[in-house]
């Protein structure tokens, strides 16, 4: 069995003392940023990129991955205890999780969330390991036209999954693509829209853009709408669910894991959809749907499993195709490139120890997270009581040092300030920044593939429809867009996001 020997090699890599420590560190930091509302994994990873310069690539990616899925665990703690989603994917958990906490069952909610996530994490790890090889082989058949169409599909998904108006999300994608054209043209070497600023000839840097929009603009938004923190005062209670609660949760966990794993693979941040889909499904299947919203344990178990499974399978498009499905994965691309690894199908053959080491570390990280989250929950609760007036200057200084250190460049600090301003204006104008970031990330690669495809087809766009795989991908994208725009569906979509 190939998978097992590969996984064994991965565990060999992941179980070195250094990598275990990095995995633990990543999970700790991830939980921390997940717990704290207003600090997202994107800003954190951007800020910690310089720290990983000194590490070997495997260690660096293990740590960054830990931050990412650690944040998913931490986000649910905040959702349950404070009724604020620490992370966007934990929104659904607030519905029943916080109600359970109010009834004095916070411990059980936390326990079910952590155990469900752990189970989902284990399954997703196997899922990645099993799908990695075949998908990689499949990806090697992709020509430029297929790559281009796949990215189009990913971008369409990201707009359908974004909150608010689809037209606006679509325009954000175009804005991202436009920003990606800044810099030296790869084929002709001409400078485009660089305004004579030397730093821009390499293009707009991702870190200042992400940090400005997701770090600083968020701070200002949080200052503008202070959140009432209603930290649960009652005791957290027993952490382990009793037998009947376990029986109630098993099926939701299984279904949530399946939904989350599949949606997570979709390029275009399908992972955010997982918890919503799982919640809706549990509510439909329940004998007594009225219990939902009043502390139904299924409403915690399902979505939490879905969210964690999706967070992990989101690595699949990155590792096999080299296409980042969301902003965090885009930062992973950055981290890989810094270490001289080009993400894509060749990672698995050229750097097998990185590929399998990372997958194995995910399983280890998930086990660590159960320990970090359950017994240590008291620490996280204390942390939630730190007032925002102290928290945001601390975030500011960390981000400032981080952004400066990436290139030792003061100009990057000013770029960040500029993008923070733009990001805040965008928030005010009701634009969702995530699709823009994804457009920006995919822009360069898309342009390259588009040009290659058109050279091969001698300037004819029909090549995208004549090739079957490419045509299928585009058709899926089109169907998704049409369905989302249908009046009946768009109403449902609004409801889903409001819940």
């Amino acid at each position, binding site marked *: 069995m190939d998978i097992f020997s590969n996984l064994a090699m991965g565990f060999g890599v992941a179980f070195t003392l250094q990598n275990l420590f990095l995995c633990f560190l990543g999970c700790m930091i991830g939980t921390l940023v997940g717990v704290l509302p207003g600090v997202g994994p994107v800003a954190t990873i951007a800020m910690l990129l310089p720290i990983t310069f000194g590490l070997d690539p495997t260690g660096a990616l293990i740590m960054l991955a830990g931050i990412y899925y650690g944040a998913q665990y931490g986000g649910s703690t905040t959702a349950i205890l404070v009724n604020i989603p620490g992370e966007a994917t934990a929104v659904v958990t607030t519905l029943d999780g916080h109600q359970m906490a109010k009834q004095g069952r916070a411990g059980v909610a936390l326990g079910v969330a952590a155990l469900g996530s752990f189970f989902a994490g284990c399954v997703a790890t196997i899922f990645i390991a099993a799908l990695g090889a075949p998908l990689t082989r499949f990806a090697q058949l992709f020509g430029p036209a297929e790559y281009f169409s796949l990215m189009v599909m990913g971008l369409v998904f990201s707009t359908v999954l974004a909150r608010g108006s689809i*037209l606006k999300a679509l325009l954000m994608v175009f804005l991202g*693509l436009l920003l990606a054209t800044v810099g030296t043209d790869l084929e002709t070497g001409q400078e485009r829209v660089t305004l004579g600023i030397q730093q821009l000839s390499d293009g707009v840097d991702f870190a200042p853009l992400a940090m400005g929009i997701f770090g600083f603009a968020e701070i200002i938004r949080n200052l503008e709408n202070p959140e009432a923190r209603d930290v649960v005062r009652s005791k957290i209670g027993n952490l382990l669910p009793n037998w009947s609660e376990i029986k109630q949760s098993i099926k939701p966990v299984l279904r949530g894991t399946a939904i989350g794993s599949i949606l997570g693979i979709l390029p275009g941040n399908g992972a955010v959809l997982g918890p919503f889909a799982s919640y809706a499904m549990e509510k439909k299947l329940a004998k007594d749907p009225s219990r939902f919203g009043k502390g139904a344990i299924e409403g915690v178990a399902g979505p939490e499993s879905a969210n964690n499974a999706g967070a992990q399978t989101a690595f699949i498009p990155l590792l096999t195709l080299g296409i980042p499905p969301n902003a965090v994965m885009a930062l992973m691309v950055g981290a890989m490139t810094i270490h001289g690894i080009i993400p894509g199908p060749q990672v698995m053959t050229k750097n097998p120890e990185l590929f399998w080491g990372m997958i194995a570390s995910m399983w280890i990280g998930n086990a660590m997270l159960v320990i970090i989250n359950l017994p240590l929950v008291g620490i996280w609760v204390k942390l939630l009581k730190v007032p925002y007036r102290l928290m945001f200057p601390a975030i500011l*200084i960390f981000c400032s040092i981080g952004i400066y250190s990436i290139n030792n460049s003061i100009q990057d600090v000013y770029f960040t300030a500029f993008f923070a301003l733009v990001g805040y204006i965008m928030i*005010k104008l009701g634009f969702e920044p995530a699709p823009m970031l994804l457009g920006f990330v995919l822009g360069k690669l898309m342009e390259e593939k588009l040009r290659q495809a058109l050279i091969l087809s001698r300037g004819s766009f029909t090549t995208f429809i004549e090739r079957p795989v490419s045509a299928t991908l585009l058709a899926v994208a089109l169907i998704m867009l049409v369905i989302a725009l249908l009046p009946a569906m768009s109403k449902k979509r609004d409801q889903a996001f409001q819940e």
Partner: protein
Amino acid sequence: MSEQISGEPDKESGRGILQDVGAGVFLILISLFFLWQAWDLPRGSLRAMGAGMLPMSIAVILGAGGVLLVIMSLVKGGERLTTPHVRGLFFVLGGLILFGLTVRWLGLIVAGPLSMMFASFATADVRPVEAAIFAVVMTAFCIGLFKFLLGLPIPIITFI
């Protein structure tokens, strides 16, 4: 660069303007800016695209989308713009810029507390003494972490 684009969208942030009108104008301005900048680049043909082809075509799409947003919003109405949080913008971005201005010139030992103190005033419930103590402690922690533990080449003291 920040003056060039940043000044323009601020004009829309008055009271009572439809949010999507503002959003559309924002996109139209960006589109015009890119059209102006990419005008002189060779566009080439579909068979061999020039450097200007994509920036131009995307900018046109973006501008058209902006116009569509404005029209739809004027026809259908919708949410209105809310007043921006000027205090937050000023102190948070100011703190960041102060950091940039002082970190090489004076070092982190000054830039850290200075930018944090300044940023603290972004909220109305600022407590200056508490903020000052916190800023100094955090800076010391950051110096320990980033300089000594992680060995990043960030200047600490440059004025002695």
